[in-house]
């Protein structure tokens, strides 16, 4: 048969030329120094602090180096609801941000391709909130959603909310704040992926009997996985450790405290440094585990 002649000419993965050069190491040096100084040192210090014991004769806030692993048991028993709540809130906020950002990013990156000017304008609008401090914006939302605000009084007037209900201080308000604040972080990576999306794949899928919903599920979503993974990571990781939205000064209340608020209180108010450090280490490890499982499951290696 005709094909047998060239059936064996398989193309192997490209061989990347390797070369070692002292210049490359030299260029890496500033980065390595920076990481050692500003990442590794604090991390080691944090780890050591998390095992500290209260000093025998000292005041509150005086600790000595020790190996008191009970600190970890203590914080987990004390703050398990906060830990679970943090990841729950972060998860819901990430999903909501994805649901809002995907159509937006698709519109800017695919539908608006024919009008590059409108495309850039819309991108500027997505980034525009960054021109104002996010503390101010969150405070503004506190005002907008306060009990006396137009929105809440209107909702109460049409009986969509009970007359004695509040919005600020509830878990819903915290999730709202997280979603709002992280939408640009979700939209931008999604946009960069969708902007490069080759529409010929979508045409090929519809030529192969896939109706629009199937085209979206089987082709568009898998091809935009790099953006989805990047966006969800950029949202989930900071959201899980966020302590602004859930703070009582902003959108949170006593029932909506997150792990970030607990760490902040332990470090700055209670001066229980080992507890705060242990919580930080736990937060970091759990995020690391969740993220590595997620990235592995998403399987985007060949698309990234």
């Amino acid at each position, binding site marked *: 048969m005709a094909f047998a002649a060239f059936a064996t000419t398989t193309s192997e993965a490209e061989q990347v030329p390797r070369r070692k050069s002292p210049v490359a190491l030299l260029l890496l040096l500033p980065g390595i120094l920076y990481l050692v100084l500003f990442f590794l040192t604090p991390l080691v210090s944090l780890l050591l602090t998390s095992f500290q014991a209260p000093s025998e004769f000292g005041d509150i806030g005086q600790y000595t180096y020790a190996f008191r692993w009970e600190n970890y048991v203590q914080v987990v028993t004390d703050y398990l609801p906060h830990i679970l709540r943090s990841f729950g809130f972060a998860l819901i906020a990430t999903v909501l941000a994805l649901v809002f950002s995907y159509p937006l990013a698709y519109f800017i990156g695919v539908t608006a391709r024919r009008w590059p000017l409108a495309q850039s304008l819309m991108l500027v609008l997505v980034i525009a909130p960054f021109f104002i401090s996010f503390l101010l914006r969150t405070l503004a939302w506190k005002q907008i959603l306060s009990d006396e605000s137009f929105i809440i009084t209107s909702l109460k007037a049409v009986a969509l909310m009970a007359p004695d209900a509040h919005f600020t201080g509830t878990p819903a308000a915290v999730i709202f704040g997280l979603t709002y604040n992280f939408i640009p972080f979700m939209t931008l990576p999604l946009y960069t992926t969708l902007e490069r999306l080759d529409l010929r794949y979508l045409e090929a899928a519809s030529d192969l*009997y896939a109706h629009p919903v199937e085209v979206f599920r089987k082709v568009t979503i898998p091809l935009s996985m790099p953006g989805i993974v990047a966006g969800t990571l950029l949202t989930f990781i900071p959201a899980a450790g966020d302590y602004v939205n859930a703070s009582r000064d902003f959108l949170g209340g006593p029932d909506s405290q997150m792990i970030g608020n607990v760490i902040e209180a332990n470090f700055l108010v209670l001066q229980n440094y080992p507890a705060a450090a242990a919580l930080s280490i736990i937060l970091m490890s759990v995020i690391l585990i969740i993220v590595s499982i997620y990235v592995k499951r998403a399987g985007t290696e060949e698309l990234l």
Partner: protein
Amino acid sequence: MTTSAFAAQGADLELVGIQKRFPGFTAIEHLDLKIPAGSFFALLGPSGCGKTTTLRLVAGLEEPTAGRILIGGKDITGQKPYQRPVNTVFQSYALFPHMTVLENVAFGLRRRRIDDPVAKAHEALRLVELDHLAARKPQQLSGGQQQRVALARAIVNRPALLLLDEPLGALDLKLRRQMQLELKTIQEEVGLTFLHVTHDQEEAMTMADTVAVMNKGRIEQMGAPEELYELPKTAFVANFLGQSNLFTGPVVGITSDAIAVAIAGQKIVVPAARAHRHTGEVTIGIRPEKLSLHLSAPADDHARNTMGPGRVIDVSFSGVSTQYLITVPHVGTLIVFAQNMAFGPVAEEGGEVWVSWDIKHGFGLEDEPADTPRFEADTTTRSIAAQRRASLITELEEV
């Protein structure tokens, strides 16, 4: 869904009064076309002639401004691409990069909920001899292999109509020949109707039963490849499908089986059956390989037309044949392909020569002679080189 079963065999395709306008230009003026079931039909034309738009209209990726599209007698104009019993082999192949070769091939079967998609996909991959690479991702395959996967992905669905959008454009010559052969074999085995869009006249002629030459949104001429080559109707066809020497002049004599045309004072005879117009100013032509070169004035022969003397202005050797450019006073430049029966060129550059050809080989065009100059063959070596370069550039850009 109407497409839940395999089509038993290919179906007729009929385009009725198709027109397609895009903002700013008209891609297709008015197109009526009927492709019988089981045939291999080629739409041939230069880039921008509307052939790819025609294909996209049939696939459902574009909507016609006016007209109807029928497959097997059924009007499918309003149907979405996924509802049509049509599959396309795209120029870019458009293999899904996130799926294995096998999943790519099984994609259409799964969408239609056909039993045992994996086994059928393997079968299709065996047909293109790529079953051993089923677990690979498309990026790990060579261009030729990707092309075969794209073909398997389309034919596995047994569409009533298979659309080929210059699928061989990116292949090198050897692979291209092998794929052409393979496509023909598959067509004969499976009995599909093929609609092949190409700008490669040689590909169209070797593969298709029927070729339609498209130009500026219209079909100029349609027929079997030999017929188009032997009897082109218009100057565009005469020069797009191979090369032609064209002359314009008044008809000065007519008999029952031939017409005589005066070209620069010489009487050229063309068989009446091979001439589309028999009165007034007409354009007649002769293919370069039908011309014989003479170093001295040939003896008068009633069965042959003679022209000359002329001067050889360029000789280029291409292995099998030698191409001569000859200027004849008051006629213009003639192009002659001579088989290399002897060593080296027969005529030298600057030499005086005559050309002659068998009366039976001439043809007369249907074009108004006024139209012809815009297609007049510019046959200087430099302009041929420039044309080749331009066509290569467009080819590269399309890929």
